């Protein structure tokens, strides 16, 4: 009986290690583009890192059903967008003010880690959320429009519309260069 228990425990440990190893490979492959994409969705570097970590945590927690997903990349981005949405509404309308307030008072070391050109940030901040999401997914995450649509849960036509409008908004910045 003891041997059986020991073998079972060993099997479980091996499975856990294998899962951890596979998870690490996935994190190393996908985390940087995912986090960068999220940075342009949330306009908050730290939030992007948090959400990326939460997304991979979700993967870990749902490993048995997701690890063999036929399109893991799409799954990750879709979950990440959901988490970004949660992040925004977590404290509700008032909470977003808190987020901005806190961001303003945040450690300057953190702020120094991301200093995009101000006119770009202003333009992105002015974009409606879905336009910003589509822009980030397509141009930063390098997802094709079909994947952008799937990640956002909208039609390809709607995704294109968001991208066209976003490009219009960003046009002036490009033309000034």
């Amino acid at each position, binding site marked *: 009986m003891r041997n059986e228990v020991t073998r079972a425990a060993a099997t479980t440990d091996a499975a856990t290690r294998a899962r951890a190893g596979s998870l690490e490979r996935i994190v190393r492959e996908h985390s*940087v583009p995912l986090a960068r994409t999220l*940075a342009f969705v949330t306009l908050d570097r730290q939030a992007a*890192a948090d959400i990326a970590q939460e997304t991979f945590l979700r993967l870990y927690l749902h490993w048995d059903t997701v690890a063999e997903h036929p399109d893991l990349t799409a799954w990750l981005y879709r979950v990440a967008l959901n988490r970004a949405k*949660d992040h925004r*509404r977590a404290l509700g309308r*008032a*909470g977003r003010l*808190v987020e901005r307030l806190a961001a303003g008072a945040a450690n300057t070391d953190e702020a120094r880690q991301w200093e995009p050109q101000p006119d770009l940030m202003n333009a992105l901040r002015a974009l409606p*959320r879905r336009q910003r999401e589509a822009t980030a997914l397509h*141009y930063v995450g390098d997802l094709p429009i079909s994947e952008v649509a799937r990640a956002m849960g909208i039609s390809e036509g709607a995704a294109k519309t968001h991208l066209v409008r976003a490009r219009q908004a960003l046009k002036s910045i490009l033309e000034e260069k």
Partner: protein
Amino acid sequence: MDSHVSDQGIRSLLHRNSPAFTSDEIWVGVQKRIASRTRAPRSRRRLIRVFAMATAGVVLAGGVSYGVFEAVNYLSKPGDILVISDDRPISPNAGAGVTIGAADYQIDLGPADQIKFAEAWRQIAELLGVDTNAWTDDYSLDFTSSGDFVAMSITIPLPGQKILVSWDGRDGARDQEVLATVSTTEIPGHDSYSTDYGLSYRLAKVDEVGVAQILAVLPQAGAGVSYRIGQWEPDDELSPGGEDSYVWAGASFEPFAQWGGPTVASISWVTIEGMTLTPEPSGTVQLWFMMDSGISLPNSTVTTEPAAEFAELMDAWATRMIIPVGVGHDYSEPNGIYVKLSAEALAPPDGIMVSALLVREAFLAVHEHDLPFDMLALYSVDADRTETLRSVISLQSGIRLADGWELEVPLGAGPDSSEVYDVASGRAYVLTGTVGGDGSTLKVHLQLPEEDAQEAYAGYLKQLIAVLKQFNREGGRIALLQLSIDDAGGNPVLRDVHDFQLGSISTWYSGEEYRPPWINPPASFPRP
């Protein structure tokens, strides 16, 4: 797409401005999060419960004590809006016509110019096998400038997946068939917060009032205008300040500010958002439309001794020093409960903390102990025993855990109490800061200096929230901040409960000069 702006130009611009991340940074964070999930769950300490119950006994023996309620308090001004969430999380029905997770399919909802939205939703829900009163905060119905129905989108979050119902008929005739596409994803539903009616209530109200009545109120700008009604994320698609409210007066909508109908304390509302969409986002205007639900919520009956079935709730409230005058069942439903507190206890300034903690502890107790309670009604009891219904909230779907939080806050996952205190007091404003209970609650009291009080006030609020946010980012678990700030003369200026675990903020402030930054300026938001 615009030929003057190349894909490569946009891509290059964004990549040049991308923040730097390393996979090491993310991987370390992921490992920490995984580790925190394996730690011991929160448990209420027996000593606390014993102490709290002893206190309860003293209070009950002495009658309705005002003194005890100094630590307990006011929910809302008389006349605050009453919102109801009696919708329940939907679950797949084994006898349903489709299998959740099946491939996309279409459902014919009939001609667009004759559609009745509640009936259309009933058909969709029946086919999916979900409750018609499914909760959602993401649905929209689109109309042309002429009022023709041309598009719809409804997202229903289910445990473990979402359902998206969509139709886009912008290029069709006004009497075209509405062929809605129903798709499901394996994406887990997001955690959200909502206190409103389920979808069937709201769509029935749209049908009853008529879309034309709503569109008639919305601003009608120039070419390219369209309209949207429903509910969606509040914020960046709105124009600044465009959030006026209107109340259905039986034949038309009236501005809320001029509303002379029944007080909102005795009536419940269904709220629907309406928006005028313009080609330029800056022209977008959003309004709120409030309609009487028609559901009567009678005052509860006489106070009775709490039954044994409420013991867990009483325990939970007692840990926060909240001792109800009465607890019982309400609405003739065994899963609906009422709680009565002294009106004095619910009076400002500190009452806001009481109501926030009462709802929080009820939610946690119901879910921790799997109690069969869905709805909580809070009554205030005046000295002459007059009872006033103050709020009703769903304990199943009206409150949700905030992003990244579990029901049980892990012990030891956060910084220890001394660390919290040191950091907070390092800002030089804290008079007292304590971490109580299981280590997940931070209580802070501050007295402002006589000079530069406003600057100190604003600076402190910024710093405190930033500090707590940073703690929680680093894996800390300060679930609850109870903040009280007085002026130099000892007069209360702010009482606040930041519930990071449930993603809610409850705030009282004495005047506009002390309006905290997380409260929008007073406008015509639907509050009397």
